[in-house]
Every structure is written in C-alpha cells, then in structure tokens.
C-alpha cells in the first residue's frame, strides 16, 4: 500500500510531468542566475526574472493559475496583474524619475537630438521583424528593446504582445548589461581618433527653478502630443518633481527605495514566470534575441552618427562619443562614453556630458513607445 501511495505522490509530483522542455528552461534559468550574480548583468531585474523562469518551469506548481470563479489563483497570477495592467512599469518610472538628475540635459538641451537619434535601432529592428513575419504589435515590442530601457520595453510589450514578454524583458536587460561590450567596437569604428579626443566645455549651472519647471513642461507637452505615453512620462516626471522640488524628500525617498524595490521584485518574478516552455522555446525567441542585438547596435550607430554631425556643425566642440549614450541604459552607456573618451585622451572627462543624451534617451524611448502604442495599440 505504501508503494501505491508513493506512486500517487510521484504521479502528482512535478517529476512525472517534467519534459525536456522544462529541463531546458531550468537550465536557461540557471544560466540567467549565473549571469546576474557572477557577471552582474542588471542583477536587480535579471536575478528576479531568472527565478521567475525557474518557478514557472517546475511543473504543476500552479503559481500562474488564473483565478476562476471562487477558486483562488496562483500567487504569481495575482502579482502578475500589476504587469498586465501596466501598473508596475509606471511605478518603477516614478522611482527612476526620483533618481534621475536631468540637470545635464537642461544645461545642454541639444542632448535631446542625440536621445532621438539613438532610437534609430528601434525602427531598424521593427522593419526586420516585419520581414521575419512578426505582426506589427510584435515587431513594435521587439523594436523597443533598442530603446535600452527596461520598464518601457515591459510596458509596451505587456500592452502589445504579452506572449513575448519574458523573451523581450530578458533580451532588454541582458543587452543593457552588455552595453560595455556591444558599444565600444561600434564607437571606435565610426569615430576618428581626433573626434574621440575632443574635450567638451564645462556645462553651465542649472538653476533649481529650471529643474523644477522641467518635469512639468515635459509632462504637459509630451502627454498632450502623445496621450498614450502618459503613464510612463507622467510618472517619470512626477518622480523627478518629487526630487527637484526639495519639499517632499520623504516621498522621493520612498519612490526610489521601498516602493521601487517592492515593485521590482513583483515585476521581475512575474515577468520571468511568463516564460513557460511553450512560449519561450521557439525560434521566435532566438529571432527576438538576434533582433534585440541589432536594435542595440543600430541605436548606437544612430546616436554616434548624429554625434558626428553635431561635431561638425559645432566646429568640433561636441565629442561624438556622447552620442552612443543616447540609447539610455542609464548610467551604463554614459560610463562607456567616459571610458572610451578617456582611452583616447586620458585627461578627457565625458561622463557628465554623456549624461545629457543618456537621460534624453529615456524620454526618447518612451516617446517612441508612445508612438508605436498609438499606432498599433
């Protein structure tokens, strides 16, 4: 009889339901955990996503089971509602806004051109994805990887192509972590030694008043022009207003810490949990990963090319290396500009100059996402 009972337990256990696909997914989860911990690939998100992938592929756990009638759903089903309804990415943007200093952007607003140009890869990937047979919604979500901005990519994908969510989120965060490997070759290829050596003038100080007006003006203008971008830009700018107003430090602190961390945990684990074997182990996923890389590369190219143009137009005052920082991936891409600039000229200090395009890139990706959602949402 014990043998029978053991058999029952066995057949009700996940071991009996385990397929090779699950095993592959578990291995993928472990690789992602490795990348997050040892290689420090955006660990806040990637470690959490990876654990979500792991949990989702241990069969029969029912963690993502939908609530039906009076029967309770799974834990991750409930937590996932915040992704599905677009709440978590917006709240993360609230924290990002409270962490972001738009000073360098206000000081040199021409950074915005670079932040626009560095969305180039989004559309290259969009076109190629279309050729691969992805629907416009899917192609938009894939393209947005090239925005190099996690919450924007997750928000857009949750709206347009939720079945691709985990692949796109993983690709986006992985490539953001790989920025120091992806960008430098392109930067050296497209710029001359002389260009890279350019030292930029010190930026003017930005007054507190300008910093306070900035989020208000940007909100009014962007949300009026692209209503669909309101949750992202609105929350980003509210967080920034918390920061710059100087009168609500309590809220700014909570937006950056407790709230953002809680939301990050819930977002990461549930985005990961959408990566069940059926959704993830497809050629599509490989295509997404390839297209994500393409998007990152062309976004870098776009930023650099406009950087070169501005170098010329400014009579050599703008170092084109700051263009690649326009992809966002804050602050990693700006650091890469700094490192490459210093390699060419050890006394070069581009970091603060690159922060302008860097934060402009966040706005740029959100705008691009808003346009795509308006067209295909």
């Amino acid at each position, binding site marked *: 009889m014990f043998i029978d009972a053991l058999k029952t337990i066995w057949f009700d256990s996940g071991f009996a339901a385990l397929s090779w696909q699950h095993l592959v997914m578990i291995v993928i989860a472990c690789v992602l955990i490795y990348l997050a911990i040892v290689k420090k690939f955006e660990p806040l998100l990637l470690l959490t996503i990876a654990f979500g992938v792991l949990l989702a592929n241990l069969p029969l756990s029912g963690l993502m089971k939908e609530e039906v009638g009076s029967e309770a759903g799974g834990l991750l089903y409930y937590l996932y509602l915040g992704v599905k309804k677009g709440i978590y990415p917006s709240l993360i943007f609230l924290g990002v806004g409270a962490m972001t200093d738009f000073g360098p952007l206000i000081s040199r607003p021409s950074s915005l051109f670079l932040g626009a140009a560095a969305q180039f890869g989004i559309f290259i990937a969009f076109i190629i994805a279309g050729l691969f047979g992805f629907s416009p919604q899917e192609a938009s979500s894939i393209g947005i990887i090239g925005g190099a901005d996690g919450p924007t990519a997750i928000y857009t994908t949750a709206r347009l192509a939720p079945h691709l969510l985990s692949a796109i989120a993983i690709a986006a965060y992985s490539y953001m972590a790989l920025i120091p490997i992806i960008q430098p070759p392109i930067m050296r290829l497209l710029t001359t030694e002389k260009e890279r050596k350019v030292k930029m003038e010190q930026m003017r100080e930005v007054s507190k008043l300008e910093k306070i007006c900035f989020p208000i003006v940007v909100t009014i203008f962007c949300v009026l022009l692209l209503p669909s971008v309101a949750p992202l830009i609105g929350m980003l700018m509210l967080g920034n207003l918390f920061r710059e107003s100087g009168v609500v430090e309590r809220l700014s602190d909570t937006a950056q810490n407790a709230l953002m961390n809680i939301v990050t945990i819930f977002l990461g684990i549930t985005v990961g949990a959408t990566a069940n074997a059926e959704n993830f182990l497809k050629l599509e996923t490989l295509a997404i990963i390839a297209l994500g890389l393409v998007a990152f590369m062309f976004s870098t190219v776009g930023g650099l090319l406009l950087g070169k143009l501005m170098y010329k137009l400014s009579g050599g005052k703008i170092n084109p290396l700051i263009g690649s920082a326009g992809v966002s991936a804050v602050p990693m891409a700006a650091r890469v500009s700094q490192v490459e600039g210093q390699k060419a000229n050890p006394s070069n200090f581009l970091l603060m100059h690159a922060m302008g395009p860097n934060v402009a890139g966040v706005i740029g990706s959100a705008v*691009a996402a808003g346009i795509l959602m308006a067209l295909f949402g």
Partner: protein
Amino acid sequence: MSFFDSLVVSIFCIALVFFVLISLFALIALFSKVLAAAAAKPGKTSVQVAQTAMQPEAVPQNMEGPDLSTGKLKLKGVDEKTAAMIMAIVSHESSIPLSELRFKSIRAIEEK
C-alpha cells in the same frame, strides 16, 4: 505588413520622435531664457520672509512626519574626518546632543 509599409511607418515614427524631442529642445531653451530673464529681477525676498514667519522654530517631536531620510550624510568638498570634527564641535558649542542633531549635508564654503 509589407516591407514598404514598415519602412514608411518607421520613417514616419523616427521623424515624429525627432519632432517631439526637437520641440522639447525648443521648449527647454525657451524656458531657460525666460527663467534667466526672470531671475535677473529680484523681489523674492518678501516671500522668503513671510515663509519664515509661518514656521516658528519650536517643532514638537514626532508630530510632523520627521525627516526620515535614511541617515545619509552628504559631504561636498569636505572629507569625513573633518565632517566628524565639525559635527562634534557643533554639538559641543550648541550643547545639543549629537543624537538630536541631524546633519543633512556638510559642504565647503567656496571662497570667491
């Protein structure tokens, strides 16, 4: 969606991205100028004074949602040793115990 359609959509979109960000550029540049012009004029002092009058010094403990920033002390142009010394001196001079003082930031006064 055909390749041609994709292309057209893409060109349209990137143009629009540029349009929005260039508009923002114009707006910010405009605002910076307006604000700089406004800042040239004085006249904010009366507001400051009124403000001060509205906030008497005596603050009851724990009633106001005390500033509970996570205890980070920002140092600007001061090393930590100096900062510790400053804090000890302030505490001694003012007879306010250190546990009651909260330093938010210590920055060197630049001599001009």
